[in-house]
């Protein structure tokens, strides 16, 4: 019993730490493409955290909308931004 709680506790700590670390990397990334990919990674870690918090409904919504479709939308926006930036410089 003791080892199980220790194990889940360390998993939780690992998840929380990686979430904060990847979130920081995403905001600090100078390359927008890198930032979007890291944002998707944040969403995936968040899905695992929602599952750990016993909220499978939120996890499903996060995986499908928050991570999958928002990531695709952001990449589509990036594609639209790119030719504009090239003509400016």
């Amino acid at each position, binding site marked *: 019993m003791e080892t199980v709680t220790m194990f889940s506790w360390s998993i939780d700590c690992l998840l929380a730490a990686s979430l904060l670390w990847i979130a920081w990397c995403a905001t600090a990334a*100078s390359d927008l493409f890198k930032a979007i990919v890291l944002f998707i990674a944040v969403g995936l870690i968040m899905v695992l955290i929602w599952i750990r918090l016993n909220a499978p*409904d939120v996890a499903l*919504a996060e995986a499908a909308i928050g991570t999958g*479709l928002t990531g*695709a939308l952001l990449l589509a926006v990036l594609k639209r931004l790119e030719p504009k930036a090239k003509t400016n410089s």
Partner: protein
Amino acid sequence: MEEEVFSGALDPADKPSLFTRYLLVVLLVTLTSWLVSVVLLLPDRNQGLSILVNEHLSLSGVRHPITAVLLNFRGYDTLLEMSVLLIALTGTWSLARPSERIEAEPGLILGFMVRLLIPLMIMVSGYLLWVGAHAPGGAFQAGSVLAASGVLLLLSGWRLSVRFVGWPLRTGLVLGLLVFIATGAAMLLIGNRFLEFPPSMAGNLILVIEATATVSIAITLTALFRGEQPDAKR
């Protein structure tokens, strides 16, 4: 370090002054410490509204408390959420400039993968919709999986046939919201309040609302990914 971080996407001229930055840090630290203290002060075993929801679950027509809250007890919120999606699409359509309609044939492997994946995704979406009545799932999740298959189709070069660009597409977009409002308004006719479903019919009504909502959410999200309004003339 600071220079490296902020050069790139942001214009250096937009960089806030030193005072603004320190003010931001102070405000953020205050907000964070306040939030942490609130979380720490929360009562240990706060049940919230879950007791109330579980007590009335038998009246909702579904067996999953979250679907019961979303579609029955707090149906208004879901209704407004769907209209927000529609308004977002209207905004995107009015802002995006139309571009050339380019239809492309996917390669052999991509075409095969798409043919394999799309039916599977439609099935998963249907499963999520059906299972929402008694387990995690529901219209938004099912709709976004269906929208993901639409995004996949768009990425592989497929475009909506010109025949469906006009009113069929628009009907699909508003169908979920219309059915939701019509069902809610029909409750007025039988003497209930707006969106107040009688327990005997609630299950079927919620299934109809969720099914049409799934279709509309999927079309709206796919159209949001496409960006510009599909033009019937091209």
